[in-house]
């Protein structure tokens, strides 16, 4: 393995810190803190009540230990749960956004000013605990599409939020979901009215800047009958020696004949080569195909975070509904990932498809964990799962934990899995044809991931390809 082991990470280019004055609340978690966060956001009483119930629930829960990851105990009293750039309040227009923040996002490749915005993509930019700007709101509003920060939705569209908040991921769901429900700060809210196809891609960009704070965002997407939306999220954080917690909740609801396509390119800071620092990405993402013929499709490219614990799932409740999960998870150095999906078939003739590609390099550990559950009434349900692992070097690990529960004899469930390794002979073959080792690895990895990449919106597919190449630079060579 002389050639396949040396690749080191290129410098993480999003590791900078923006020097900005922030309003932070005292460290630690208590009922007082929950009330304080709610007050900061000027929330209605019902929202506070919901948070408090979640907080009490959380107190009674135990942190899960079943995932194939190892980390020192998290001190929940040592985290700052709210950090917001000062001093501006809510922004009526982008002109009022702090230029320093605009600059920070521009540096991240997310221009927010009108003349520089990416055509065809509306962005909600979230910095630590608050949304700092949402672009193209007016244009979307003309079609009846609501795209705003979660805080704004609580104030402006309480009836929709009340109806769906916690309907897919209740605060009782798991430890991190309960924590998020108690302290969530901001996130994105999307509502696509009946029969509307969103005229542009909606996206959120999450940025953690403060070294002491965690990020606890909450996203809710509701697609009414016959509507369609494609949503993308991206995330980065500066390089700090200390681990930081990111515990998000995402809920998707698709009604009759509606489609939601949700894509993620996750590039949180992963820690250094020795595993120091990096984000703990403990996230609950779930979509409910509530209506007949609805479809929810998750595509994720996970390249960052020290630890990833994440299972974007689909509850296939409506008859003939479809759930999809396409995933590339890349780990390098000391990164750990335990990720996969759950497909819960409830309705008749529901179908699901799982394509998971795990790439492990360095001393990292990459696990796929998935559940396919066919309930007794899910007549004619079908699932196809394919889990492939690619190992780079001799010290990385790949694991697969598929769980299949079938309660209806008419169901068809297929599972395929493979593990392969980039071999010295493959690299030599490329070299002998004049191709340098790095390009060879890039090409093999792109080939390995192409079924997933082709699910991504075009611009993001290019970005994902570039990102993987960058992450592996020096790990083969």
């Amino acid at each position, binding site marked *: 393995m*002389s*050639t396949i082991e040396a690749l080191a990470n290129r410098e993480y280019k999003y590791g900078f810190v923006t020097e900005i004055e922030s309003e932070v609340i005292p460290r630690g978690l208590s009922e007082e803190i929950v009330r304080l966060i709610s007050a900061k956001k000027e929330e209605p009483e019902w929202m506070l009540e919901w948070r408090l119930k979640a907080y009490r629930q959380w107190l009674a829960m135990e942190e899960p230990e079943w995932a194939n990851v190892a980390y020192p105990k998290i001190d929940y009293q040592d985290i700052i749960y709210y950090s917001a750039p000062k001093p501006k309040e809510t922004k009526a227009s982008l002109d009022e956004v702090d230029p320093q923040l605009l600059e920070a996002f521009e540096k991240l490749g997310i221009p927010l000013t009108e003349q520089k915005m990416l055509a065809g993509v509306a962005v909600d930019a979230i910095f630590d605990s608050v949304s700092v700007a949402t672009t193209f709101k007016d244009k979307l509003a003309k079609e009846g599409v609501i795209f705003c920060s979660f805080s704004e939705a609580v104030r402006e569209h309480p009836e929709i939020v009340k109806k769906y908040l916690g309907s897919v991921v209740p605060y009782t769901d798991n430890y991190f979901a309960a924590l998020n429900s108690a302290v969530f700060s901001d996130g994105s809210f999307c509502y696509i009215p009946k029969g509307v196809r969103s005229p542009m891609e909606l996206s959120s960009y999450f940025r953690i800047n403060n070294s002491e704070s965690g990020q606890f965002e909450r996203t809710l997407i509701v697609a009414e009958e016959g509507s369609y939306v494609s949503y993308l999220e991206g995330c980065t954080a500066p390089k700090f020696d200390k681990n930081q917690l990111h515990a998000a909740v995402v809920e998707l609801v698709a009604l009759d004949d509606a489609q939601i396509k949700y894509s993620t390119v996750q590039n949180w800071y992963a820690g250094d080569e020795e595993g120091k620092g990096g984000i703990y990405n403990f996230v609950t993402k779930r979509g409910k195909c509530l209506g007949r013929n609805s479809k929810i499709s998750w595509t994720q490219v996970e390249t960052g975070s020290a630890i990833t614990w994440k299972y974007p799932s689909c509850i296939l409740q409506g008859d003939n509904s479809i759930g999809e999960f396409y995933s590339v998870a890349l780990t390098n150095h000391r990164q750990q990932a335990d990720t996969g999906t759950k497909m819960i078939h409830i309705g008749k003739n529901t179908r699901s498809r799982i394509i998971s590609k795990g790439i492990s390099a360095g001393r990292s550990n990459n696990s796929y964990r998935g559940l396919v559950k066919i309930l007794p009434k899910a007549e004619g349900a079908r699932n196809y799962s394919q889990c492939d692992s690619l190992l780079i070097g001799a010290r990385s690990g790949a694991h697969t934990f598929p769980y299949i529960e079938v309660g209806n004899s008419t169901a068809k469930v297929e599972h395929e899995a493979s593990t*392969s390794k980039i*071999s*010295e*002979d*493959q690299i*030599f*073959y*490329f*070299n*002998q*044809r*004049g*191709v*340098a*080792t790095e*390009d060879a690895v890039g*090409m*093999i990895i*792109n*080939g*390995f991931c*192409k079924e997933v990449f082709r699910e991504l919106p075009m611009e993001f597919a290019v970005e994902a390809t570039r990102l993987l190449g960058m992450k592996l630079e020096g790990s083969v060579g």
Partner: protein
Amino acid sequence: MLEIRNLHAVIDGNEILRGLDLAVGAGEVHAIMGPNGSGKSTLAKVLAGHPSYEVTEGEVIYQGKNLLELAPDERAREGVFLAFQYPVEIPGVSNANFLRLAYNETRKHRGEEELDPLEFDDLLREKMKIVEMDTSFINRSVNEGFSGGEKKRNEILQMAVLDPRLAILDETDSGLDIDALRIVAGGINQLARPDNAVILVTHYQRLLNYISPDFVHVLYQGRIAKSGGKELAHELERKGYDWLKGSVAAA
């Protein structure tokens, strides 16, 4: 074009090449024959720069350059091509993308314009005719699920596309039926031009019915034991390799 002097090479602590000398001029076709384990494939891989082999002594001068100082991909871009005895499969990477990348790397190296996918497609289809390969192979993954004969033909296709200065063919004839052998030989003959050179590593004489070498060398215990013209191949076919033992002892 190529001058090998006193070449010694080891793998896993075993010395396979033990002072090999060979000179190959432009426009020449050389056949390297010899019994199993004599070092034929090792010679091919060492010239291409396979990382498992270590050169412990000697030198290789290729077009005035010290070949051993160049990385494997640099050697390839300088025009050294190895047709592998056992080509590897590369799942997920299409033949077209693989070859276009390889082709353009060499073009870039020579300071020439790269070809875009459409231009390259025309070139590729043209070259595929030489090896009588079905165009469905264009979009299949490199060597994946190919039969032994298809893999060998694919090697010749790559050679035809890359148009190397020095082509080394490592037992390209083994495992081929008569038709495939004819096709492969045809591809090699197209490459043999006054400015190119070919080294054919082969176990059997039968490839030489289709390709006429200018020189035949017999490799034995890591050295060239005997060199001659085309007639030497026939002599080997008749007598086998045993009679060489005496001549090596004498040398």
